[in-house]
């Protein structure tokens, strides 16, 4: 995403990148970024907490006007939980993981990298196939068939 942010900024449109991976965002170095120390998969907030997520978004968008140094990052004060214990289980080193193969101790959300569309539900697949029955598909924008 960092490359995309940099390209859009270069094309003349100001960008702001949300981030829950500080080192990845620092390495990519987009024009403006806001760091929220939440687990991956929660870049914009917590599920079913609209007021919290609105506060996060309000503070995030403020960085458009508060950051003035190219490549700078604002840190938001929100914490995922009272403790940071969730960090112990995130992508733990492989050595540790191998040692615990029999009783998985660490989160591992990897799956095989299939090269066919991966639908959340069978109904979605049916709906997508149905939308391709007509002569003109209105939802195929951006898809290279």
């Amino acid at each position, binding site marked *: 995403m960092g*490359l995309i942010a940099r390209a859009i900024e270069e094309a003349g449109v100001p960008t702001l990148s949300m981030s829950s991976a500080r080192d990845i965002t620092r390495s990519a170095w987009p*024009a403006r970024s806001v760091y929220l120390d939440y687990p991956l998969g929660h870049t914009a907030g917590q599920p079913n907490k609209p007021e919290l*997520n609105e506060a996060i978004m309000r503070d995030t968008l403020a960085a458009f006007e508060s950051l003035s140094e190219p490549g700078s990052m604002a840190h938001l004060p929100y914490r995922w939980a009272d403790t940071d214990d969730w960090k112990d289980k995130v992508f733990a080193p492989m050595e540790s993981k191998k040692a615990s193969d029999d009783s998985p101790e660490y989160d591992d959300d990897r799956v095989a990298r299939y090269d066919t569309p991966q639908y959340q539900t069978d109904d979605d697949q049916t709906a997508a196939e149905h939308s391709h029955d007509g002569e003109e598909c209105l939802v195929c924008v951006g898809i290279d068939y």
Partner: protein
Amino acid sequence: MPTNYQRLQPPVDYIPRITAQYSGLGYGEYQWLQSEDAPAWTPLSKPLSESKLGFICTGGIYSAGQTAFHFKDDTSYRAIPTDVNVEDLRATHFAYDLTDARKDINVVFPVEQLRTMVDEGVIDSLAPDAYTLMGGIYSTRRVVEELIPALVDRVLADEVDVVLLVPV
């Protein structure tokens, strides 16, 4: 605020951890983007409260009826109307826990809180469409040659004043 400060930890260093995981699973060496030069900088042309905002999200989000993303260097994107019913949104991905995104898509595709920002006057309006991507693309060349030009064209055609990027 937490009271047990001794339990707090610094930000997670994802680059070494994810690199090790990907290698261990036989995905090959992932080349993280390391920008050597400072980014370009475009000042805001008007106050944020008068700005039209576009947003782009990775995380494999699609709307029911659209073709889902695949998991192997998918450089396509989807246009999702920003007045979409969030019940129609889906997420599939190979690299993060989808549980919470499927409970409430706003954690990775913050469309409802952005609509609230319009209602509150924090921003003036949203672009008619948001764009979603897969991310986790191994080929930088394909991102640069295929995906970025298409997205930049889209953003310019939408005449947005600012763009928010929401990676997973």
